């Protein structure tokens, strides 16, 4: 190491929100509202969440009309059958990583397509859907989806005819939403496991449609790097 070398921080910038979170967390621990252990337990729990339970919920509903009715009537109760207890499963036993315990399952029909957004910030049914994708939290998606839903959906590769009513759901209060898309053609005779595989996270937000053989979210279009590092 040359003697001119100056120690520099590994990370140049920490965002103000990161500093705010740290400060509030440390104050809360100091005041005894929760312990560092509680915080660790919560963080560990958050990392176990994924969209798989929600995918299974949709697959079950496709196979069982009675269960579908329950999903539409009481999403929290329906979640129990796919192993998600919105009320008792959380390390705190009263709050969820989505703040609240109200889930609505928005069922599409051949003439109705739902798509979910939170224009306020990023409300998302985390207990059953895991962490939201980055684009879901961007002001771009949030402000444009409510106003130009068809254009935004087209960017996701979904073009819908005028016979289909597009219904944007703005998650601005205590309800969290998932979309139950129509069961696609070509899945006749499939098992619940097979059907679960094609209900991707984007299908559950409403920005994609399930398709036989398609088990992953579409890649988002990104501009290629003009000056790629190391080439």
């Amino acid at each position, binding site marked *: 190491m040359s003697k001119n070398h100056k120690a520099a921080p590994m990370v140049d910038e920490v965002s103000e929100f990161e500093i705010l979170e740290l400060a509030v967390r440390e104050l809360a621990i100091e005041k005894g*509202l929760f312990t560092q252990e509680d915080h660790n337990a919560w963080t560990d729990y958050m990392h176990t969440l994924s969209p798989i339970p929600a995918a299974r919920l949709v697959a079950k509903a496709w196979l069982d009309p009675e269960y579908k009715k329950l999903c539409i009537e009481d999403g*929290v109760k329906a979640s129990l059958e796919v192993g998600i207890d*919105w*009320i*008792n499963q959380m390390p*705190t*036993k*009263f*709050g969820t990583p989505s*703040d*609240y*315990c*109200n889930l*609505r399952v928005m069922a599409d029909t051949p003439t109705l397509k739902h798509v979910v957004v939170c*224009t*306020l910030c990023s409300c998302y049914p985390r207990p059953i859907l895991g962490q939201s994708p980055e684009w879901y939290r961007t002001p771009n998606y949030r402000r444009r989806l*409510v*106003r130009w*839903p*068809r254009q935004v959906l087209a960017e996701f590769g979904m073009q819908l005819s*005028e016979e289909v*009513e*597009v*219904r*944007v*759901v*703005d*998650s*601005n*209060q*205590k*309800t969290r939403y998932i979309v139950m898309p129509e069961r696609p053609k070509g899945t006749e005779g499939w098992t619940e496991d097979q059907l679960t595989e094609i209900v991707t996270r984007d299908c559950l937000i409403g920005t994609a449609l399930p398709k036989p053989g398609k088990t992953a979210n579409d890649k988002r279009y990104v501009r290629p790097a003009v000056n790629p590092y190391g080439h």
Partner: protein
Amino acid sequence: MSKPHYDLEHHVKKATGIGDPQCFKGEAGKAKFKVGDKVKVRDISDLFYTRTPMYTRGLEATVVRLVYETPPAEDEAWDNTENVEWMYSVLFKQKDLWPEYSDTFSSDTLETEIPEHGLEPA
């Protein structure tokens, strides 16, 4: 001056094993609106009540579901859970929200939740 007493466990006691908003069930009294009612979003001050989107203010909608009872979340931020009210899921026509919305897709809609204090009969 004596130290003020804050019952920091109040909400925990109430919601544990029941859930929120479920823990406020039955506290709002009779609902002012029913499914199918035409309502109008009141353009009230957004100084404290920030959750009703600006783009819905002053516009007409139809009640599609009485979803749950709750105090306004903005009140809860100040530890005030006294004014429990009904929350309504209401449906807007996109054409009403955005005048330039395409006539071709005039059946498109938007659904969101508005608390009872934010609505008046249309």
